[in-house]
């Protein structure tokens, strides 16, 4: 069996590009690529144009995908233009084309029975959670959401996304909207009040680590979408590894593009940046 058996590479057209708060919401006509896209998957996009000095592909979490519509299959992204590559992408006009590979990586696991789910997002990391919320809602799940950011403008919470959410709680570190503080300050109360059975999270690694601590303390399953800088998105560059326990409990440096981005939070050895955790398979003696 191949790795990423559903992935295709295609030149796809920009259908729409709109500024939403601090971010750009972009829609691409992707044809069949949308067919297999699931919440949690990502795409890898070539940036900068043919003569660019930017040679590496950029990974973007899929915000939503659709198989039907006037333009056939579409994939939507929420782009934060905070680097040269993402800025280039955010500046693409309607009808321009970009080279996209997808869908890539693992997806959020969807429970077979209706459960009470809590979705936790940081910054534009909230994007893939809205597609997930739709799927969970369609399965009869209760869906609560906590979104946090440093300030109000950096929270991504579009109106249409809220339809699938029972209760949305916002937190900002500067108190400009919602509760002043961090997502982890409000989680425990929601978990207890709504009898949360599964937590899904997406955002910066430090936030995911803190969410995992809350999840473990409450003894709730936690699936998170991890991130580590990536050169290819398809599993060949070996740069995006994070230490994770395999099924046998052995810590291995595993690719966040192949074994992730969605992983079981309890399998991750958190706080391992710039070091190989002790006991890792093949660690230097």
């Amino acid at each position: 069996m191949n790795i990423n058996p559903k992935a295709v590479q295609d030149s796809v057209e920009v259908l729409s590009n709109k500024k939403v708060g601090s971010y750009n919401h972009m829609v691409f006509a992707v044809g069949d690529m949308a067919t297999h896209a699931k919440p949690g998957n990502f795409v890898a996009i070539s940036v900068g144009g043919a003569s660019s000095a930017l040679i590496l592909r950029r990974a973007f979490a899929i915000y939503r995908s659709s198989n039907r519509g006037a333009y056939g299959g579409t994939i939507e992204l929420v782009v934060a233009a905070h680097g040269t590559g993402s800025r280039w992408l955010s500046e693409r006009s309607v009808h321009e084309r970009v080279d996209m590979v997808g869908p890539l990586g693992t997806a959020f696991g969807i429970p077979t029975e209706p459960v009470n789910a809590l979705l936790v997002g940081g910054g534009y990391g909230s994007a893939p959670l809205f597609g997930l919320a739709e799927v969970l809602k369609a399965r009869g799940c209760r869906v609560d959401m906590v979104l946090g950011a440093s300030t109000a403008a950096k929270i991504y919470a579009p109106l249409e996304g809220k339809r699938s959410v029972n209760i949305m709680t916002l937190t900002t570190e500067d108190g400009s909207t919602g509760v002043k503080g961090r997502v982890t300050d409000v989680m425990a109360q929601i978990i207890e009040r709504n009898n949360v059975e599964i937590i899904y999270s997406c955002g910066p690694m430090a936030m995911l680590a803190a969410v995992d601590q809350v999840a473990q303390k409450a003894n709730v399953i936690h699936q998170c979408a991890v991130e580590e800088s990536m050169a290819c998105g398809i599993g060949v560059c070996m740069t995006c590894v994070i230490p994770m326990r395999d099924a046998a409990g052995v810590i291995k440096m595993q690719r966040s593009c192949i074994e992730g981005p969605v992983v079981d939070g309890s399998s991750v050895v958190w706080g391992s940046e710039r070091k190989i955790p002790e006991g890792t398979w093949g660690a230097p003696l």
Partner: protein
Amino acid sequence: MSDFQAFDFRTKFGGRYFPAPIFTASGCAGSGKELSQFFDLNELGAVVTKSISVKPRSGRPTPRMAETPSGMLNSIGLQGPGIDQFLETDIPWLQNKGARVIVSISGETVEEYASLARKLRGIPSLHGVEVNISCPNVENRGLVFACDPVASRAVIEAVRRNISGDYPIIAKLSPDVTDIVSIAREVVAAGADGLALINTVLGMVIDVDAKRPKLAGITGGLSGPAIRPIAVRVIYQVHKALPQVPILGMGGVTSGRDALEMIFAGASGVSIGTATFGNPSAVMKVKTELLQGLRDRGFSSLMDAVGVAHG
């Protein structure tokens, strides 16, 4: 497509012919499975595997990557499962797919290289071994065999003694030396059938906000188009000195035009590495464009074009 058959695209390393002069670069093609989703591995001259060690290696901590102008630094540190698991899982999968395979090996001592060579002896139908004596991502710079002619020679002799006679041995050299030709002469004298030129160039990036090296491993190997002129220069120098020794050229090849440069400088084949990160089908693009580029310039075989820049 019919006149494609009139062109002799074959290349040769040691006693082995390869149907096309396009290869993956070691450490840039995963296990092969990752790329097989995007093209048929059989289209390649051969898959050159990641450099495999005696024992499993975790590789270096993250961050392992920094993008640089027209290039990237990596400090993977030879992450891999070790030779035994590699021979159990990776090799059978590749052979089952019909891919030709050149296994790249990397050791910390001469004895480790000998031991890796012995393990390969028992594997039927490999197409060659790349002896990586030049990975820059090791703790001790003194462990880069390819910086020292005597150490380079010792490694290649050990591999030659321990491997079956008909596997071409390709020694992968570092550009980070004062006199690449003297290293090349030593490894050829020791029994190398070909040379892989070049490995990455040792480099460094400082994170100016954090005020520390960007990579956890501090230094890394620079690859991509930024190093292509260095690779072309090295290939040219070595081909001039050792015109009979086939060279597998690599370093920033992204297009057929880039591959032509290396062929004309003296390479008999070209490996694609970093370009695959930006484009999963880069190797097929280079293959198609190289063939067209050679035909456009009136060549009817690849071998006729090797080293033509030397006049």
